[in-house]
Structure formats: structure tokens, C-alpha cells
């Protein structure tokens, strides 16, 4: 395997040519992944599978995956060059997260050779979408407190899985999931977990859509009843799931910055939103000094948030501060988003109470955006957890007492409403 790796520049030119010849312009649903209905969504899913296959056939799938697993064996620099050339072009957006990272990344790091061969090429060919199954109903921020149980069948060595997972994005059309389950209840919580690979579309897995208050139904909840998993689909050691889980969450935090992820640079995620100026103008308040103060406050928060990101990155590069400083950014972003949403709501005034079918942004929808505002302080770890991390790990203040430290998991208090 000592063959020479293609230079980034040669590769870039080759990629540019191929992309121009083979890929169309970027589509709105690449950005938001939002579709009008399920039927349209399944069409988009099929198109993403085909696009991923096209990359594979063209020799551009999985640039940083090894060649023997169907990838290209190139470096993160090659991936970055490809992403730059991809700017403005269509791409299989649904594969990026969670399929490539954290799922494929976890298989690459902890999977057996057989598991890698079984799944990495399939993923790169667009045949397998993967979901991550970490959170549980009622589990809140305590991921390691998972109660989905896997019990070994002594006869076959298989594992029998029972329990429920939640907040799995678009699980209803995904092919496989990685699951964190409890295999030992007689040891403290971090010591009795194991990770498994599991086909999602099977009889023992019931997938329910969760409707958010704005009508969105991308989040799912999965109920597993006596799902049989062969031991060959176990990832990592028995009861060693927390070792896997911590890296899993690291790969999750990497998100779209992971070298495993192929996507055009310069994407602006989410829908295009009305600016505070546009909202104030539409509400007839652009000349109102009080409205102008709100506009300026929102703008200032935006500038501060991006400068904070830059400072934390430069601190990390300079070796100042520890990795937990990222919680500072998470907390700030959450609180700033909440304030910005509230400002938009205030600028919109009474107009935020309703909107016509035709209006996709502007004054009217600020009401619904306001209702959803806390999501930015909940998703991806709550601001409460980030405050704990900052206080305890950045400032070194005493840890909170916990009711589960050194206690066999079966004896951990779980409250009146949980089993």
C-alpha cells in the first residue's frame, strides 16, 4: 500500500471537471431537507441514494475512507478541496449527518473488519442510511442512564433488545441504526452499556413520528420489542459501550466539520430568514427608535457570537483554555438565539399572530419561530448542562452530588414515573 497519493491540486482539477460534467446545481431541499410531504421526501431520499451512487461510480465517494472499503484513501485536504469545488452543486445531503458521522465514523473506529466490510462500502454506494439511537424518552441530559436493555440469549449468543429511543431524525426511512443499550444492571451506570448495530425496518421495531408544535414531524421515536441481534453486530466490548459512546458523541459534535463529510462549502443551513430590518419594515416600524434599538441589539449579538467563535478557536489553537470551553460557545449561542427570536417577535408586533399560506417568512411567521425559540437552548445538549460544564470543568467549582455515582445501576433512583 505504499502507492503515491495524488496531489491535492491535481485532484482538485480532476474533481472540478467531473463535478461540472456530472452534477447539477444545488437544490433548495439540499439546504433544509424539508419536503412538502412524505411522498416528496421519499423521492428526495431516492435521489440522494442515486447521487451518492454517482459519486461512488465516479470515484469520489468517501474520500477519507480507505480504498479497501470502497473509499478513496485520500486526506482531509483532498476532502476540503472537493468540498470547495462542490460549492453551488447538488449533493446527497441526507448522508452527511448522521450517516457519515457519527455512524460510519464509529464503525471505522470500533467496528470489526467484518462489520466495516459489511457496511462502509454499502454506505458509500448509497445503499444504507444510518441513524443514531442514543437519547431515550424521559432520559433528558443523562445519556449514560440508558435503560434500553439487551439480554443475551444463552442458547444462541444473540442479544434480545427491548426499550425505546427518541429524537431520531427521520428514522422512518433509515436503514440501520447504532444503539446504546444496557447489558449489565449490577454495576454503576457507565460500566454496563454496550453498543449494537441494528436494521431499523423490521417487525420488532415500531417507529412513531413525533409532531412538533409547528407541524414538523422529522423526529421519531422507536420502540424495540424482543429485537434479536447477533453478537457479530455488537460494536466494542461487552459492557464497554461508554468507551464507544464518548467517541460517538465526539464524532457527533464534529458534525459537518468531519473529514468524512462531503458537502459544498458556503452552505447556509436552514431556511432563508427575514432580517430584523425586513420585519420592522413590513410591520411599519422601521422609523421607530425603539424598533431600531432592537435591530441594533440583534445585529450586535450576531457580531459578538461570531467573534466569540473565532476567539475560542484561536484559544484552542494557542493551547489556551481546555476543550470544555466549547460549552461557553454553546451557552452563548443558545441565549443569543433566544434573544434574537424574541426581538424578531417584538418587531413583528401583533402581526406575528397569524400568516397566510403564501408567506414563508416575514412578520407572520415570527410567532411560530418564537414558540420554537427554546430549541436553541435544548438541542445538542441543554444550556443547563453547558452551565454545569463551565462551572465544574472550566472554572473548577465543586461537582454536583449525583445519586448514581458508584451505585449499581439497578439501584439508582429513577423516580415515580420511570421503571
Amino acid at each position, binding site marked *: 500500500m505504499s502507492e503515491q497519493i495524488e496531489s491535492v491540486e491535481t485532484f482538485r482539477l480532476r474533481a472540478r471537471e467531473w463535478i461540472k460534467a456530472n452534477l447539477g446545481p444545488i437544490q433548495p431541499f439540499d439546504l433544509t431537507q424539508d419536503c412538502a410531504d412524505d411522498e416528496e421526501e421519499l423521492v428526495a431520499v431516492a435521489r440522494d441514494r442515486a447521487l451518492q451512487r454517482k459519486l461512488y461510480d465516479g470515484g469520489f465517494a468517501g474520500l477519507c475512507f480507505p480504498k479497501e472499503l470502497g473509499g478513496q484513501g485520500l486526506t482531509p485536504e483532498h476532502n476540503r478541496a472537493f468540498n470547495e469545488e462542490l460549492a453551488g452543486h447538488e449533493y446527497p445531503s441526507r448522508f452527511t449527518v448522521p450517516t457519515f458521522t457519527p455512524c460510519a465514523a464509529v464503525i471505522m473506529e470500533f467496528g470489526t473488519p467484518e462489520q466495516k466490510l459489511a457496511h462502509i462500502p454499502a454506505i458509500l454506494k448509497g445503499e444504507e442510511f444510518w441513524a443514531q439511537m442514543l437519547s431515550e424518552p424521559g432520559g*433528558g441530559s443523562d445519556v449514560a442512564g440508558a435503560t434500553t436493555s439487551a439480554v443475551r440469549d444463552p442458547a444462541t449468543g444473540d442479544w434480545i433488545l427491548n426499550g425505546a429511543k427518541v429524537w431520531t431524525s427521520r428514522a422512518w426511512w433509515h436503514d440501520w441504526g447504532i444503539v446504546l443499550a444496557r447489558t449489565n444492571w449490577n454495576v454503576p451506570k457507565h460500566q454496563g452499556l454496550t453498543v449494537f448495530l441494528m436494521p431499523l425496518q423490521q417487525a420488532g421495531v415500531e417507529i412513531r413520528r413525533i409532531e412538533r408544535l409547528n407541524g414538523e414531524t422529522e423526529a421519531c421515536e422507536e420502540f424495540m420489542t424482543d429485537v434479536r441481534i447477533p453478537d457479530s453486530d455488537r460494536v466494542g466490548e461487552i459492557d464497554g459501550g461508554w468507551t464507544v459512546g464518548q467517541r460517538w458523541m465526539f464524532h457527533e459534535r464534529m458534525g459537518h466539520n468531519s473529514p468524512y463529510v462531503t458537502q459544498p462549502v458556503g452552505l447556509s443551513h436552514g431556511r432563508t430568514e427575514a432580517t430584523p430590518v425586513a420585519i420592522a419594515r413590513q410591520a411599519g416600524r422601521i422609523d421607530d427608535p425603539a424598533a431600531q434599538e432592537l435591530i441594533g441589539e440583534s445585529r450586535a449579538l450576531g457580531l459578538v457570537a461570531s467573534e466569540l467563535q473565532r476567539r475560542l478557536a484561536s484559544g484552542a489553537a494557542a493551547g489556551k483554555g481546555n476543550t470544555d470551553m466549547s460549552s461557553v460557545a454553546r451557552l452563548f449561542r443558545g441565549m443569543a438565539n433566544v434573544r434574537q427570536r424574541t426581538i424578531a417577535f417584538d418587531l413583528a408586533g*401583533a402581526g406575528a*399572530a*397569524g400568516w397566510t399560506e403564501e408567506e414563508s417568512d416575514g412578520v407572520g411567521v415570527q410567532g411560530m419561530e*418564537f*414558540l*420554537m425559540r427554546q430549541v436553541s*437552548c435544548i438541542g445538542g445538549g441543554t444550556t443547563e448542562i453547558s452551565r454545569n460544564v463551565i462551572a465544574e470543568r472550566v472554572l473548577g467549582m465543586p461537582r454536583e452530588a449525583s445519586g448514581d455515582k458508584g*451505585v449499581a445501576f439497578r439501584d439508582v433512583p429513577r423516580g*415515580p414515573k420511570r421503571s
Partner: protein
Amino acid sequence: MWHVLTSDQELLRDTTARFLGDHVPLSRQRKDLRRDPAGFDPSYWRSGAELGWTMLLVGEEDGGGSVSGRGAVDLALIAYEFGRNAAPGPLVDCNVVASALTGHAGDLQKGVLGEVLTGGAIAASVLGHAPWQNPGEAAITIRKQGDDLIIDGTLRPVESAKQAGYFLVTGRSESGMTQVLVPADAAGLSVTGLRGIDVTRRFGAVSFDGVRAPASALVGEYGQAGAQVSRQIENAAVMLTAEAVGAMDMAFAMTLDWAFDRYTFGRALASYQALKHRFADMKSWLEASHAIADAAAEAVADQSPLAAEKASAAKSYIGEQGPELAQDCVQLHGGIGVTYEHDLHFFLRRVSLNRLLYGTPAEHRRLLAKIQIEKEAAA
């Protein structure tokens, strides 16, 4: 709400509470009512009217009457139950219009009032010119043409606009604020339905394109409606804040239960001091909201000199803290708080919507400042 009520008031409140629980439980709102064009059945509204929902601000000579002699207080009790149940129906607008029409001699006014009292018709208020606006900001204008009145302009949001049989239109005329009663089928009047943030309350945009009404459709004097509009807004503020307090009570109670029931890291959420202190803050907002909502209802019922100030204080304080409390409840629930898996969002919707109607917190603060500046100039 009040610590002590008369037995008549308790009966009124409990009857409504039972009725709402039976007819529009959240389980029903979650399923069929949210997709219903009106958000409720006509029979629901008529039965509610029989329970007294639309009569409390109406004089006895017009077929109305209160149970305590203080209509706005009695109505606040009903509105509070609406908030606790996140109940549908144009309670606020029908009462605002009824209060505007009572005591009027005109046939049109008497006829509409009669229909509103029985629940047979819905009337909506189109506040096209509000006391916190400069005349130039009015959305609707009214002018004289011979003996007729000509109405132009568009306003949104208007509650139950698609269901309303009549609109009480407030607009600017060259002589000042003016109110006219217009049937929904008037020529030049059109309604566009809106999607909205509450599940079972419906709103629309109402457009007037040279709508013509006879002088007999005036409510109050031409150009002299300022004082009556202010009183209507005070009544609306009483209902909207009492509703909000009911919704806040429910959101707070279910979140407190949640904190006791949910364990994380082997401890109940309720044992974490950072959360305990947030509950304490919420409790202080909640008690303060009860206090000022009650005070506003009493002052408005008694037409006290402080009625306008207390109504605006309630509307601005609760308009601000109601949504903040509900959002804190969402935060403490986590992701489930913004889903249909849980009922919390019904109350978040209610307090957020009520913040917007009949003057936002910012607008009521400007009103309060205006009053204060006048007072201190006089002193």
C-alpha cells in the same frame, strides 16, 4: 385569581370549568378541533352563551347582567378557566362588542347584541385605530359621504374573522376615532383566513374597500369614540390577562410535577438548586400576575380612576412574563415541551398570542407613559 369568591361566583366559575372540561378537553383539541375550520362547534358556543359567557358586560335592560354586580370580575373568572383549558371560542371579541353595543338605541345595534347574547352570531372587533397609535398609523379610515360612511383599509389579525357575522370597525376619521358596526356580507368587505400560533383560535385579515354603511350603523358619535375604545381595550385586557394567568397556572403546575417526577443522574430535577431558583422566580412572576390581573379586573369593573393604568400594567407585565414563564417551562421539559407528545404547548401558545392582542407590552407601556406624563404635567 381571588382568594375569596362569593358562592354565586364559584358556581359560575365551576360550571364553566366543568363545561369546558367536558366539551373541549385537550385530547379533543389535539385531534379534531385543531383541524376544524372554526376551532369549535356552533353548539358549543351557543351553550356557552347560555352559561352566561357573553352577558356579563351587558346591562340588565338589554338582557345582560352579572352575578356579583362587577361584570368584569365575573368575566375574568370565566376567562381564567378558558386559559386553564386553552379553550377555543371568541370570548374576548364577543364581549368587547357586546360591551360596546349595550345601551344603544339603534335597531341594528340591538339586533346584533341580541344575537351575540344568545351565541347565535359571532361579532369581532376590528381595531383599525388604537389609542397607542398616532393618527397616521391607523390601518383603517372612515369618512362621511353624504349620509353614509365609507370604510377603507385592512387589518390583521382579527379573531374569528371567517366565522363572524358582524364587525365592530374602529377607524380614523378626520374628526377623530370612529366606530361603525358592519355586517360581514357588506359589499367591498373581504376576509382572508390566516394560519396562526394558537391551535384552536382562528384569525383572519379583514379588508374594507370602500365599504359603505349608513349613519345608523355608528356606535357612539362620529369622531368621538376615543373614550369608548379605551374602555373596550380595558375590558379586553382583563379577559386576555385572566386567560393568560390560567394558562400560566397550568404550565407552572405541570412543570413542577415534572420536576418532582423526573430523575436525572439519580436525583429528581426538583433537587437541583439552579432549577429550584428558577421555579422560585417563576412563582414570583405567577403571584405577581395573579395580583395585577385581579386588580385590573376590579378597577375596570368599578371604573376606578386607575382602571386604564392597571389594565395596561396587567397587559404589559403579563404579556412579558407569561411567555417567559411558559418558555422556561419548555426549557425545563426539554425537547418534548415543543411537541404534541405533551400538552405544555397549548399554554405556551395561549400566553404568546394573548401578548399580541389588543396592544403589545411595548404599546401598553407607551400608554402608561402617556398617562404618567400628563399626570406629572398637571401636578
